[in-house]
């Protein structure tokens, strides 16, 4: 009963949203080069179905690869900053400054630096745009660990590594997953920025650019929807992982 409701409510909301969208286009009499309607999207999807699958896969694996690198680098940076006051003072301004640069400006630079390396460029941007929240959350999680948590094991003669594995790491997991939810969306943006900019680059971003060049507006909208679906998918994969690894931090509503 509860699960049925859990699925039915968002599905109903989606259907209502689609109907509202269709109605808005119809009542205003917008042509599809101004605003495509949901009924225009199906033909676009069908016409380019193989490209959607092919390019969708490109976008997906590039995003996931960039995100995985961001997780590794972000966690390592977070650990370094979380454990060493000096490193935190040294690295923080650097990271904040780097993060403040709009990544849209970095995209053409990377594209020129490694011309033609489409996969690498795309993964690189996905990584660059998404590691920051992970690094920050891990460093805050580790540096705010209450001393008593360390003491219960340190008093028994446990090594720093043991304390990290048994206490610091699991205790930081909820913050880590919070950051990962932000990072997964960011990585997705990074992938598409690069795919749109790079010529002959493949990926859904490239398909979007093709739609723009050939003035195929329903195709452009169809790509947006495909991206949204993929974004939801990735996001909920992270939510599922969070439930498995940090489910203890969830509070059941009273």
């Amino acid at each position, binding site marked *: 009963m509860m699960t049925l409701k859990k699925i039915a409510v968002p599905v109903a909301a989606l259907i209502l949203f689609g109907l509202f969208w269709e109605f808005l286009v119809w009542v205003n009499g917008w042509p599809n080069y101004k605003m495509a309607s949901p009924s225009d999207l199906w033909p676009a999807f069908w016409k380019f179905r193989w490209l959607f699958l092919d390019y969708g896969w490109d976008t997906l694996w590039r995003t996931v690869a960039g995100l995985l690198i961001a997780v590794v680098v972000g966690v390592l940076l977070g650990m370094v900053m979380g454990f060493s006051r000096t490193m935190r003072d040294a690295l923080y301004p650097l990271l904040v400054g780097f993060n403040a640069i709009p990544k849209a400006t970095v995209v053409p630079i990377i594209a020129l630096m490694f011309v033609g390396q489409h996969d690498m460029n795309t993964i690189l941007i996905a990584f660059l745009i998404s590691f920051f929240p992970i690094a920050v959350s891990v460093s805050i999680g580790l540096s705010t660990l209450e001393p008593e948590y360390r*003491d219960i094991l*340190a008093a028994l*003669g446990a090594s720093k590594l*043991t304390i990290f594995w048994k206490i610091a790491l699991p205790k930081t997991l909820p913050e880590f997953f919070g950051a990962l939810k932000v990072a997964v969306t960011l990585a997705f943006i990074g992938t598409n920025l690069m795919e749109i900019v790079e010529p002959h680059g493949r990926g859904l971003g490239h398909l979007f650019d093709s739609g723009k060049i050939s003035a195929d507006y329903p195709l452009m909208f169809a790509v947006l929807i495909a991206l949204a679906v993929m974004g939801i998918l990735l996001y909920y994969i992270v939510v599922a992982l969070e439930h498995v690894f940090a489910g203890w*931090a969830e509070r059941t509503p009273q």
Partner: protein
Amino acid sequence: MTDLIDIKGVRHAYKTASGPLPVLDGLDVAVPEGGFAAVVGPSGCGKSTLTRLIAGLMMPDAGEVLLQGKPVTGPRATVGMAFQNPVLLEWRTILQNVMLPLEIVPTKMSKAQQEERARSLLALVGLEGFEDKRPSELSGGMRQRASLCRAIVHKPEVLILDEPFGALDAFTREDLWQTMHRVKAEEPFTGVLITHDLRESIFLADQVVVLSGRPARTQYVMDIPGKGPRDLEELYTPEAAERLNILRQQIRIAQGRAAA
């Protein structure tokens, strides 16, 4: 007979931006095997520093901290600690929390024996049936009981309690005092209890040490006669009132105010 815990003339200062801040200066505490000393004193007088010295998490600037006649040089597996904050790990069940020290300390017990021991301790403190619950599902008093089990599960030779009942309401606290007596009868330990509560000190300990204001030295030591579990009624006898009165005066002196 050498005392199990022997602290002699300990001095310690913290380094701060504005120069060294002395917290302990001439501290003496001696606890025989099986003894239970309560340490009381004005707040900020360095009581928690004392626990860290005994645990080997800190070294004194001068003086000696001896356990069974040997100087403490670092953390040892033979210490058990419990704090005001029960610091239970949220991602573990109560049983897994209690078994945590056994994952660090070398033990001859098999996995099954370890679990058996943890379960029997939980039963001893009245947490039977809560083994598989998460800490967040327990009340403050129950969490503190679990924290106590974790502190003694590896049979430490020294139990250090740093205001473990400080954050509990009065009724829960008295319940836990009685639990402490039950635990001590079943699982004898040598312990140091840091507390703010004079009634708690005379009810639980057999020796009350009053520290002076910062930098703290041993100002007064009171022996509480009688072995074995006590009854809450004993807190309302004339002897108890007399002891509390003396300790209260000592605290006032420690705070730098003249005795009334």
